[in-house]
């Protein structure tokens, strides 16, 4: 089953994203890919397919979509209001999108990045070995009204599964490890950094987000100039005015500002999902502990498929109960789990 998903209306921040491209740092291209990699893994688990397939990332708000054939879809990441032909559908779940039906996805209720996955993945053209748009590098473009995306062959059949989502959409504590230039900051500054409650600034995007606070900026000891060095996603660089700036998937590949620490990769979704104004605190943890967290998270993600459970429907909240029976027979197959 292959088909086409057409975008009837697009929010301002829709792009095709996958796990990003590796091997091009040497040429100045950062990995890029989904801002929330956990959401990619969750979508793959819900559809029972590989996490390397491309999905649509929706920054802050979704859009309106229609397919020319029956498609399996999954919705993950920042929870958004979603409906198929007017009937509300659950977030962090898989559904059947019948041919010709209208899928409407609204604004994020919390968090920043929502994801629309399809069975078989989107077949956007590959550049440097990946399908993800990397706007900062000039690869790909934001999706717009009228765009038609090809969908790859889908061998799966199951829909109507839900997955309890890790709550990572309201900020909170983000763990960091010391990195290249952490020791350039005096201990007192590192302590103050941990004690400060930051707010995610409004200027954030896929390249990075400023972390604002009411206190003074953070300073290194003396006016050190550091030679430009490699940047990795999660690096927290401190710019000239002392504001920490967390670099995300689409950052530059090198930087000369000192970095106070690096966000542990498994906590990066929490940071990337924090919407403007949301409170975030940073905690240093030892490298050994971070390594264990990462290994455990990799195992947990491998087991996500086993965590998917059939959606339970409560007839008292199904105001449109009849519509379920009136749509094609296919939808009744997995949806009738009561």
């Amino acid at each position, binding site marked *: 089953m292959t088909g086409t998903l057409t975008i009837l209306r697009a929010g301002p921040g829709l792009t095709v994203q996958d796990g990003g491209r590796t091997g091009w740092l*040497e040429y100045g291209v950062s990995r890029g890919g989904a801002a929330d990699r956990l959401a990619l893994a969750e979508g793959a688990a819900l559809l029972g397919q590989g996490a390397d397939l491309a999905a649509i990332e929706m920054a802050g708000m979704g859009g309106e979509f229609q397919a020319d054939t029956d498609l399996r879809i999954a919705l993950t990441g920042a929870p958004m209001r979603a409906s198929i032909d007017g009937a509300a559908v659950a977030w962090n779940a898989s559904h059947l999108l019948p041919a010709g039906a209208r899928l409407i996805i609204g604004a994020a209720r919390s968090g920043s990045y929502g994801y629309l996955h399809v069975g078989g993945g989107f077949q956007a053209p590959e*550049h440097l070995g990946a399908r993800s748009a990397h706007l*900062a590098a*000039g690869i790909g473009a934001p999706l717009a009204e009228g765009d038609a995306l090809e969908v790859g062959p889908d061998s799966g059949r199951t829909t109507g599964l839900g997955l309890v989502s890790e709550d990572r959409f309201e900020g909170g504590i983000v763990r960091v490890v010391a990195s290249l230039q952490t020791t350039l900051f005096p201990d007192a500054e590192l302590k103050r950094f941990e004690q400060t409650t930051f707010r995610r600034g409004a200027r954030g995007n896929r390249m990075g987000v400023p972390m604002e606070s009411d206190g003074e900026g953070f300073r290194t000891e003396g006016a050190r100039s550091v030679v430009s060095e490699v940047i*990795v996603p999660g*690096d927290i660089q401190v710019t000239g005015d002392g504001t920490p700036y967390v670099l995300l998937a689409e950052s530059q590949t090198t930087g000369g500002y000192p970095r106070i620490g690096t966000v542990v990769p498994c906590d990066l979704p929490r940071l990337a999902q924090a919407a403007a104004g949301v409170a975030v605190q940073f905690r240093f943890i030892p490298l050994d502990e971070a390594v264990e967290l990462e290994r455990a998270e990799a195992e947990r993600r491998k087991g996500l498929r086993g965590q998917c459970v059939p959606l339970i429907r409560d007839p008292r909240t199904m105001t449109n109960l009849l519509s379920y029976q009136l749509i094609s027979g296919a939808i009744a197959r997995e949806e009738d789990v009561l």
Partner: protein
Amino acid sequence: MVAARVETSVPEIRTVGVDGMLVSFGSRLSEPANRAALAFRAALAKESWDGVEEVSSSLVSAYVRFDLRHLNHADLRARLENLLAQRDWYAAGLPDKRRLWRIPAVFGTDLAPQLPQAAEAAGMTEAEAVASLSSARVRVQTIGFAPGQPYLGELPEAWDIPRQSQLTSRIPEGALAVAIRQLVLFSVATPTGWMHAGQTAVRLFRPDAEEPFLLRPGDEVQFTSVTPEELQGLRRDPLGGAKAEDLA
């Protein structure tokens, strides 16, 4: 004292984030440290150890990202130390398959408005500055920050001029900018503290081309002076009139 420390610098291995390591050959840019970084990166790529996901080099360092499920920090550090001990990396030659690029550039005029400011900082007249910049053969020391964007050096000592503290809000693609004895040829429009002394029509990154990146670390570049009219004529060519010859 700082200079003395640089002279005697030994490679330093540090962690980068949770799954990366960096081997640095100096705390500031020098020709031997840059050669060492390029050569060590090439050696790492050749070793292709299981679990290594990506290697790259910056001005004075080589970076390794690895899969925590297949390698651990202690083992990787031991391997890096072992490889470091195999030779004097500071004495390494330049990468293979290097090329000399000649790239047409307009110096000064309204296309590159900071030439007068840069010349003054370097203690030269504008004519002297153009003669100096267009005769220099500079080498790609690293590619970074943005796709295909080279850091080129080393320029004569007179060009050891600081970056501006006040950023230029937008320098265009193809801009040639100078500071700290280096040139940067910009691959995307961006804010910068480097001084805009020249303008080219070259596209350094073409995602759809068979060879998406024009330059490689180790390549040499000379910027030949052309008039604004000549540059206008070169804009139809995606290479902007850039021509390469192989270096032995």
